[in-house]
């Protein structure tokens, strides 16, 4: 438990992905089976050790501490699990803190009524044997809280792969969903003690084929080349729909299982298949169905429980554009043209409302298609794919010496461009003078007292020239209004040249809008902030 809770503590305060990976792989290297396997399951959210409710924990601590001191402490700390972990009276016990395996063994017993009554005593015994940091992790686990510290599952898998010189992250991702905790077979394989775990007949993730962004010149060039096929580039979330042995899974780009959030997509088809496609969420209104925003999609992805109302009013759809396997046959080595034929065949026998085929477009009219994107529903650009190429996921073995993304080229819709006022700057912790990590932009609104500013979104400072950053830094020094830790609010004065893919409405934000993939193009010298974009004109851009 100690090594695991120390790991969780450190992950919480370690921002850089490569350092998180180093911490996790160090832990995996030093921890025996099956302990590390359960840790892996908890870090990826594959497993929950929920055994009780916060009220039970509160009752336990109330028996042991003064009520007024408990209240003062809760007030100061704010979190019950953390307060209890620190307040719990130290006791002299010969027992060692429970290890994860012990907790896993105790889990099924919780089902019976008798053990439920005994559980508080069991938990108190564990807490007695723990140190504060262990207690915190234990309490989080017991109440079903996350110990993942915001680390994406792909990073945890990368850390497991780092134990091996030969097995890559993509290879781990590919077998991952065929495995169950505590993953003994995975560690054996990674450490060269066993064979690759068998994934036949199981719904597993396949590494995605990636594309590169290009400009109009390259795009039009490809359109004239008969080796290339053209499709719409759809908005929404890229997912992989996998059916194997009649079991359906929907995987995110990171290889996370989204199936529970989209039950309407998990009805099995007559034959097994693996599709690559784009997931969208739609809003059913009295007038009909319209495409939901990115926010609507994220909200559905985050849902823990599903209700009939959500399925009725916010249905999900899948637009498929590639097929990776059909009827247990791996199609990834076929050229794209052949895969598209198989996909069309398959689409022909499937009659599901939620599934549709992304059509191939006429290469002769790409210019007009691209210009017409603003009027199309759900398309954010065009994509050019080389017809004679296999499906190359991020696995180097499949890539055959090609740079990733050379076979798929994305030509996104022309960006919206406007000028916005810099409201807040955030510095990189411990970074150098002109190292900003984030800017918050504002648009102009008309207030009773004249023009005012409202925040419209955050953007990375990448893309600004060094001298522009130096200018902003000098300005920030003289014109800081307030500081909140590493964040400063600035007086209005810096106007930035901004572009973004599009503008979506957002009920959650004060501005009522959300900028999709905003980028900075440069700094407008000598433009008064009152002449920056107005909020109203941005709201008018919402499609």
């Amino acid at each position, binding site marked *: 438990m100690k090594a695991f809770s*120390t790991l969780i503590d450190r992950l919480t305060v370690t921002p*850089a992905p490569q*350092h998180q990976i*180093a911490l996790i792989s160090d832990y995996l290297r030093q921890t025996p089976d099956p302990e590390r396997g359960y840790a892996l399951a908890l870090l990826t959210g594959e497993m929950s050790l929920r055994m009780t409710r916060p009220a039970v924990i509160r009752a336990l601590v109330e028996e042991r501490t*003064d009520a007024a*001191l408990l209240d003062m402490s809760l007030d100061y*700390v704010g979190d019950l699990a*953390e307060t209890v972990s620190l307040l719990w009276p130290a006791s002299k016990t010969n027992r060692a803190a429970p290890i994860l395996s012990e907790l896993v063994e105790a889990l099924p017993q919780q089902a019976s009524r008798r053990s439920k009554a005994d559980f508080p005593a069991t938990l108190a015994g564990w807490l007695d044997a723990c140190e504060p940091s262990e207690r915190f992790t234990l309490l989080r686990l017991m109440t079903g809280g996350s110990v993942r510290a915001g680390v994406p599952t792909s990073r945890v898998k990368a850390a497991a792969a780092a134990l091996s010189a030969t097995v890559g992250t993509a290879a781990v991702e590919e077998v991952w969903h065929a495995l169950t905790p505590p993953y003994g077979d995975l560690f054996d394989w990674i450490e060269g003690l066993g064979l690759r775990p068998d994934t036949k007949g199981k719904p597993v993730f396949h590494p995605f084929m990636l594309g590169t962004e290009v400009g109009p010149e390259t795009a039009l060039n490809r359109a004239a080349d008969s080796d290339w096929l053209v499709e719409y580039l759809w908005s929404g979330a890229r997912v992989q729909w996998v059916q194997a042995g009649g079991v359906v899974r929907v995987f995110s780009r990171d290889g996370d299982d989204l199936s529970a959030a989209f039950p309407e997509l998990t009805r099995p088809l007559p034959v097994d298949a693996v599709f690559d496609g784009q997931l969208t969420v739609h809003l059913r209104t009295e007038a009909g169905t319209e495409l939901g925003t990115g926010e609507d999609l994220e909200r559905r992805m985050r849902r823990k429980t599903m209700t009939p109302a959500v399925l009725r009013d916010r249905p999900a759809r899948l637009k498929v554009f590639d097929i990776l396997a059909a009827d247990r046959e791996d199609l990834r080595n076929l050229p794209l043209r052949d895969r598209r034929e198989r996909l069309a065949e398959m689409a022909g026998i499937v009659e599901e409302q939620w599934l549709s085929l992304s059509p191939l477009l006429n290469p002769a009219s790409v210019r007009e298609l691209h210009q017409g994107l603003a009027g199309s529903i759900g398309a954010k650009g065009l994509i050019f794919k080389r017809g004679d190429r296999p499906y190359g996921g991020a696995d180097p073995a499949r890539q055959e010496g090609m740079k990733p993304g050379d076979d798929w080229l994305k030509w996104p819709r022309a960006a919206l461009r406007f000028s916005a006022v810099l409201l807040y700057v955030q510095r990189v912790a*411990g970074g150098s003078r002109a190292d900003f990590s984030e800017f918050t932009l504002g648009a102009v609104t008309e207030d009773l007292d004249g023009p005012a500013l409202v925040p419209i979104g955050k953007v990375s400072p990448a893309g600004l020239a060094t001298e522009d950053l130096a200018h902003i830094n000098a300005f920030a020094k003289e014109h800081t209004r307030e500081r909140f*830790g590493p964040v400063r609010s600035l007086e209005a004065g810096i106007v930035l040249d901004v572009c973004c893919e599009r503008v979506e409405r957002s009920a959650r934000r004060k501005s009522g809008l959300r900028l999709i993939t905003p980028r900075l193009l440069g700094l407008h010298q000598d433009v008064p902030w009152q002449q920056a974009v107005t909020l109203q004109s941005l709201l008018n851009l919402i499609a």
Partner: protein
Amino acid sequence: MTPRLRRLENHPDQWLQVRPAGLYCVPGDFYIDPHRKVDRAVITHGHADHARAGHGHVLTSPETAAIMRVRYGKNCAGTFQELSSGAWVDHFGVRVGLVPAGHVLGSCQIVLEFGGWRVVASGDYKRASDPTSADFEVAPCDVFITEATFGLPVFVHERAEDEIAKLLASLQTFPNRTHVMAAYSLGKAQRLIAELRAAGYDMPIYLHKAHQRLCELYEEFGVPLGPLRRVESATATALKGGVVLAPPSASREGWAEALTEPLNCAASGWMRIRKRAQQSRAELPLVISDHADWPDLIRTIHDTGAEEVWVTHGREDALVYYCQTQGLRGRALALIGREEEPE
């Protein structure tokens, strides 16, 4: 003679007062740790919010006097009267003695005897062992004046050697990252160095110029700190995988900007609270403090046998409440000019 009767007279309430400049002893005409210039001051330890420059006469330990001279210059007080712990002076009928407080080098509790009463002003103190400071000694008394920096039951410090083990483990996990430890120059820096040495770390430790003079002073007083180097003259390559101690304000200096992927560490009792640790932006928050944690605060109150506890600064409410539950008279002294944790 019944002590109770005697005690109704000369109660310390009558001869120890909170005045604008600080805690004042009326019959002795002196202040304890005044935060303004006064004629006569008794100083518990060298931290800036307890030891100020410009007093007429200062009574303190030889170590604290030396620390004040290093920090403020030779003439920072009209006269210094150095008193070793265990020795006493008589001043206008008040007997004054010093007893080690275990906070930093030279830190002392001040024992006052007057009118048959004994009062101990502890200043800042800790009970945990510290190779750079004499151990805290319990001074039995009637009134104990305690700090309460960590006066909530959630403040339970870790053992310093366990926290140092985390730092050493981190140096193994990240052998190419320079571990930059934010530490104030008096006490915290030297303790971290000494704890690292005690754990067997014998590589050179890199110091910021702000730390150098006080480290030398510690060594002059017989606290060995091992090989130390100045960070300003070290190359980024030399610093790779090394340990640097610098004041928190130094992160914008040239040597710090030349580091690739520095790993910022912090050592403080506040690191116990996750939110505070995250706000500090340290990647390695260590719960090491120069102050007593909650269990040690209440243990000390009981050890002194005091019937009355005055709480000077920090989170007074919980400690005053605790004293009341124990049948002791607890009272918050509103002293101004104390910082949250002058570590």
